[in-house]
């Protein structure tokens, strides 16, 4: 990461997930990617009902059962045990991806290696060596009505993850419309990153310095406020 005037405090994954959770809409059908995106459900705001979809054929699953109470015939796409909420439905894999591909999900939230300013997503492999694995991500990015990403703003060695053009193998072309990072919230529209929120005290210059494509502003940029102690 380049040196900046205000070396920014950055949000934890839990804080990023909290911020993303604030945008969950009441009554929405949502698929949360394996791992980091799953955290979002933890922070679902009170008073809103969200129906979670998992690729392996459940709509309306709830939190994990207590340890020792797992039923391994009730799992999510990450192979973790889940419970069923009243009104849940079970179906087979082709029906599950008919839901995905047919545009019936309101929102999918995924992790990312890179997101480009045109909404391209790279999140399934970083090169051509080793064992590749893709899962349902390529389907989700072209199926859900809205595709959002939660991610650190930069890689572990400080390279921007928001880029002009992805260098890693693509998961989908022009599919991401919102990104929640450890520093900011951005929309992607018209081939541009539109900055919506940034951490209080983080300067535009500092944020631009760790972003691999130009940041655009339409209207005001709000403070990205997240509880400290989560």
């Amino acid at each position, binding site marked *: 990461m380049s040196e900046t005037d205000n070396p920014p405090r950055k949000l934890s994954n839990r804080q990023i997930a909290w911020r993303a959770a604030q945008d969950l809409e009441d009554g929405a059908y949502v698929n949360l990617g394996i791992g980091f995106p799953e955290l979002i459900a*933890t922070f679902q705001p009170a008073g809103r009902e969200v129906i979670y979809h998992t690729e392996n054929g459940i709509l309306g699953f709830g939190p994990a059962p207590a340890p020792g109470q797992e039923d391994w015939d009730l799992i999510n796409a990450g192979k973790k045990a889940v419970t069923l909420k009243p009104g849940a439905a079970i179906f087979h894999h082709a029906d599950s991806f008919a839901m995905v591909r047919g545009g019936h999900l309101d929102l999918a939230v995924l992790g990312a290696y890179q997101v480009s300013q045109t909404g391209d997503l790279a999140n399934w492999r970083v090169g051509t060596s080793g064992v590749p694995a893709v899962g349902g991500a390529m389907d989700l990015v072209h199926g859900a009505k809205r595709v959002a990403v939660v991610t650190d703003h930069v890689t572990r060695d400080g390279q921007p993850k928001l880029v002009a053009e992805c260098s890693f193998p693509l998961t989908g072309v022009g599919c991401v419309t919102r990104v929640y990072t450890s520093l900011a919230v951005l929309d992607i529209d018209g081939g541009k990153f539109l900055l919506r929120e940034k951490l209080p005290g983080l300067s535009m210059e500092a944020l631009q310095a760790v972003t691999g494509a130009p940041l655009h502003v339409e209207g005001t940029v709000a403070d990205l406020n997240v509880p400290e102690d989560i």
Partner: protein
Amino acid sequence: MCEVNKSQYMNEGTRDPRPGNAIPALRLQEDSLDKSVATTADAVAEVPDGAVIMIGGFGGSGAPIELIHALVDRFRATGHPTGLTVINNNAGNGGIGIAAMIRAGMVTKVICSFPRTAQSEAFTEAYLAGELALELVPQGTLAERIRAAGAGIPAFFTPTGYGTDLAEGKPVEMFEGKMYVRESWLKADYALIKAEVGDRMGNLTYRGASRNFNPIMAMAATTTIAQISRLEPPGAIPPGAVITPGIFVSTLVEVTDPQQEEVLVRAETVY
């Protein structure tokens, strides 16, 4: 996909009382997700002129007679909706349901597989008078085109119809020595369907063999309106017994003692 933080999952919420930590528990918000409306008139109130409408049912089984008649009532009272395209296996029987829509003059096109039956006078008269357009589709291709629309598949190949008049002008191609015709998805603005039990989230089951086109039409329409015989609370339908998951349903209306098309046709009922 990224596999960060795999050890943490939603159950964290149940033991973490810190701010922002809403706890997703095994209950539903009681005021959320209620897709039910009070009357069939409410249910069809938004259908606009020119809409493409899938209507479920096959013969007397699974036809949403009350929803159709609510649409006819609205047309008689207001002149709208009109200029409708109707997608169904048939083209109306007797003097009720789709036949009543045709007689009322609110339909300009029918997409179906079998418009000619012993009781299809309403369609036959309008069609032969040149007042109705017809797109004839083999029944299995009709079902698959509807399913494809629901599943986000814009085109597919089927052997059905190859070498026949119904494949004229369509691309054909050989796979493993057999000829196939390319067909396209068939989408709709609205689906009117009939189910038996529903919950307010829109999960549905069907009576007997009345599923037929209903579940796939629910998938293929932008807005799906279901009439149900019985509204039950979420959870009343076991998750494995749900035939149409609520994600495919926009609006529900309870019609506790629904009419059966076959009975009405045999009684020569005219709506």
